[in-house]
C-alpha cells in the first residue's frame, strides 16, 4: 500500500494548479465568474481541454488521454482548492463516464472526442424532485416512438443543465431505468437554470414528449448508473479534500493575522484547538479519499462500499471543517466578499449532490453484521 504520487502525477498537479491559480487565486475572479449566466469560465475550460484534462479518463481511441482515477482525483483536488465552478464532475466524470461505459463505439467516438476537446459540454440529468440519491429513475418516463424514444417528466436539480450542449438522461422504461441522449435543441425541452447556494449552476428540466436516442444497447442501466454515481462520489471526495485543505489554510492564516484584545487570535487556545481538530478531520479524510481512489483504480468491483465509506467521512468532516472555518473567522466569515463562506457552501453542495452522512451510514449499517472487521490491506 503506497499513498505517494509519482513524478508524472506531481507534474500534472503542478501544471493544473498553475492554470487554475491564474484564474481563481484571486477570489474576486471566482465571484465574477459565478455571477455570469454560464457560471464558469469558458476560456479556462478550453485551456483545460488543451492540457488534456477533459479527456483524462477516456481511452485514447475515443479521443481521451487514457489516464486513471488517481489523475482524475488529483484534478478534482485542485479544482476544489480554488473552488473552481467548472462542470468537470457532471460533464467529464458523470456524463462522459456514462457515455464511455454504456455508449457504442460510434457514440464514444462521436461524443468523447469533442468533450475532450472542450467543444461539447454534456450534463447528466438524473436526480428527480423528491428522490434522494437513487440509482433508478421514476419521474421521467421513456416511451417508444417508432425507431426512437420520447421522454416526459421532470429532472431537478441537474448540475449545469441549462447550459449543457447534450443531456445524458436517465428514464424509466418497461425494462428498468434506461439511459438516453437528448440534444439541447430538441423540441419539448424546457430548461430553467439557477444558481445553487455554492455559486454553481443547476437547472430544472422538464421533458414533454422530447425526442431522445437510447445510449448504447439500451436495457436496464441501473447498475451502470449506480457505479457512475459511486465513482462521482469518490471524485467529489477528492474535490472536498481540496476545499477542506484550503479552508484550513485560510483559517490558520487568519488566526495569525487578525487581532483582538491587542493580540493575534492564535493566542486564544479555544480557537487554536478547534483549528487542530480541523486538521485531524482533514488528514483522516485525505487518507480515506486516497484509499477510495485507489480502490476505484485497482478494484472497481469494491467501489460501492468504498464510495459509501469515503462519502460518510467526507460528509462528517465537511460539515465540521466548514462550520469551524466560518466560526473561527467570526463576522467576516459570513460575508460573500470573503472566500471562507463559499468553502462551507461548496462542501455542503458536494454533500447534497453526492449523498449526506446518514445516507452513507445507512448503507454501511445495513451490512455491518456480514463481516467481523474492515481490513483495507486485504
Amino acid at each position, binding site marked *: 500500500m503506497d499513498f505517494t504520487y509519482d513524478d508524472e502525477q506531481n507534474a500534472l498537479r503542478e501544471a493544473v494548479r498553475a492554470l487554475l491559480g491564474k484564474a481563481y487565486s484571486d477570489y474576486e475572479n471566482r465571484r465574477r465568474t459565478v455571477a455570469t449566466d454560464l457560471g464558469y469560465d469558458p476560456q479556462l475550460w478550453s485551456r483545460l481541454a488543451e492540457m488534456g484534462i477533459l479527456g483524462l479518463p477516456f481511452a485514447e481511441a475515443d479521443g481521451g488521454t487514457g489516464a486513471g482515477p488517481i489523475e482524475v482525483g488529483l484534478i478534482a483536488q485542485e479544482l476544489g482548492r480554488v473552488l473552481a465552478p467548472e462542470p468537470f464532475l457532471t460533464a467529464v466524470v458523470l456524463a462522459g463516464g456514462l457515455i464511455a461505459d454504456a455508449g457504442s463505439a460510434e457514440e464514444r467516438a462521436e461524443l468523447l472526442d469533442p468533450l475532450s476537446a472542450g467543444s461539447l459540454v454534456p450534463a447528466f440529468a438524473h436526480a428527480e424532485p423528491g428522490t434522494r440519491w437513487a440509482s433508478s429513475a421514476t419521474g421521467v418516463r421513456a416511451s417508444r416512438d417508432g425507431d426512437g424514444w420520447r421522454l416526459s417528466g421532470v429532472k431537478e436539480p441537474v448540475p449545469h443543465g441549462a447550459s449543457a450542449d447534450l443531456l445524458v438522461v436517465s428514464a424509466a422504461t418497461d425494462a428498468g431505468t434506461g439511459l438516453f441522449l437528448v440534444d439541447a435543441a430538441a423540441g419539448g425541452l424546457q430548461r430553467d437554470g439557477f444558481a445553487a447556494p455554492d455559486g454553481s449552476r443547476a437547472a430544472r428540466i422538464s421533458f414533454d414528449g422530447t425526442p431522445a436516442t437510447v445510449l448504447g444497447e439500451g436495457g436496464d442501466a441501473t447498475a451502470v448508473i449506480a457505479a457512475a454515481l459511486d465513482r462521482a462520489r469518490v471524485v467529489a471526495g477528492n474535490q472536498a479534500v481540496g476545499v477542506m485543505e484550503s479552508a484550513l489554510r485560510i483559517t490558520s492564516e487568519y488566526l495569525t493575522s487578525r487581532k483582538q484584545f491587542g493580540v493575534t487570535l492564535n493566542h486564544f487556545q479555544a480557537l487554536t484547538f478547534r483549528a487542530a481538530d480541523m486538521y485531524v478531520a482533514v488528514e483522516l479524510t485525505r487518507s480515506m479519499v486516497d484509499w477510495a481512489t485507489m480502490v476505484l483504480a485497482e478494484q472497481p468491483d469494491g467501489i460501492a462500499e468504498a464510495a459509501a465509506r469515503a462519502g460518510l467521512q467526507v460528509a462528517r468532516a465537511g460539515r465540521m471543517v466548514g462550520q469551524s472555518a466560518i466560526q473561527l473567522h467570526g463576522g467576516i466569515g459570513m460575508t460573500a466578499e470573503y472566500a471562507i463562506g463559499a468553502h462551507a457552501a461548496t462542501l455542503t453542495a458536494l454533500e447534497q449532490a453526492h449523498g449526506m452522512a446518514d445516507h452513507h451510514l445507512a448503507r454501511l449499517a445495513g451490512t*455491518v453484521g456480514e463481516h*467481523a472487521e474492515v481490513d*483495507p490491506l486485504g
Partner: protein
Amino acid sequence: MRLELSPADAQFREELRTFFTTQVPQEIRDTVAARRELTKEQFVTTQRILNAHGYAVPHWPVEWGGRNWTELQRHLWHEEMQRANVPAPLAFNTSMVGPVIAAFGSQEIKERFLPATANLDIWWSQGFSEPDAGSDLASLRTTAVRDGDHFVVNGQKTWTTLGQHGDWIFCLVRTDPEARKQAGISFLLIDMTTPGLEVRPIELIDGGHEVNEVWFTDVRVPVENLVGELNKGWDYAKFLLGNERVGVAPVGASKRVLGAAKEWAREIGELDDPLVAARFAELENDLLALELTAVRVAANSADGKPHPASSVLKLRGTELQQAVSELAMDLAGPAGLSSFAGDVSDAPDWARVSTPVYLNLRKASIYGGSNEIQRQIIARTILGL
C-alpha cells in the same frame, strides 16, 4: 499510489500472522481477548518468545536486535500482533528506555542494559511524572545531588504504571537547581531494590492496581548509571515522548474489540437494532480512516523521526479506543453493574469486564502527552498557530 501490499510485504504479513497465532501460548492470547489483566509472567513469557525470534525490538539499531524494517513493515508487525491478541512487548523497555540508551548511552551502558531490556530480564518502570509535574513535565522537582561516586536522589514520582513489577526505573531528575527549568534535568537509571526507594500503590477508579507512587529518600545511585550527558536529560525525554506517540494508537486492538463486540451484540439480539448497527458502522469507518492514516503517516516518517501528524494518531487513536469501550459498556447495559460479582454472576464475562475497562481507558486520552497537549503540538508545529 498503490492499494495492494507488494508481494514481499504480503508474505511478510503472512509470516507474522502465522508466528503470532502459533508461537504465543493460547492462554495468554485468550486473556487479552477477554480484556482481562495479564500477570507479570505472561508479559515476560510473551516478550521472550518474541525476542527469541527477532520480533521484540525490530525498530532498535540492528546491532542491538533491530531488523531494519520499513515503516510499513513495522506497522504490519504492530497490527498483526494486536490482531492475534498478543500482548505487545513492554513499552517501557522497548519503546521508551531502550531507544534512549541505544541513541545516547555509552557503549558500556548499552552492553549492560540493552540485551536484558529486549528480553525483559529487566522490567523497567518510568519515573517521569510527579505530583506537580504532569503535562508541564519540565517543572519536575526530584533532585539528584552528586556525592563522590554517587548521586543522592530525593523526591517523588507518580503514575508509575506496573511499578509493582519493576526491577529498574528510568528517571528524570534535577541535577542543576540553578538552571532554566528544562536545562537542569538528567536521565538516570535506578535499581529499584536500592535502600530508600519505596513503591506505594494507587487505587484507580476501575478498582485495579495499575499505577503507583515511587518515593526516593536519600537513594544512592552510582554515577555510571547516568545516561548520556549531565543536564541533557530533557533532550532525551523529548526523543522518548516523540517515539511514545507513534505506537500509542492501538488501531488493531480497537478493531479486534469492535469485531468481538458485534458477537456480543448478536448474542443479546441487539445487532439488528438500526441505532446499534449505525454505531458499529460509524466506528468501523472511523477506525478505517485512522488505520489508513497510520499507514500514510508511517510511510512519510523520515530518518526515524516521527511525522508531526503522529499527534493525529495518538489523539484519534485514543478517542476511538475509548469509544469502542463505551459501546461495549452500553451493550452490557445493567449487566455492567455485576462487574465484581465473580463467578456467581449470570452476566457474561464480556459484560462484567466492560465497566472497569471503560473506566480504565479514560487514562488513554491523558497519558503519552494528553490529547490537549497533542492539539497544542498540531496547532503550533503543523499549523503555525
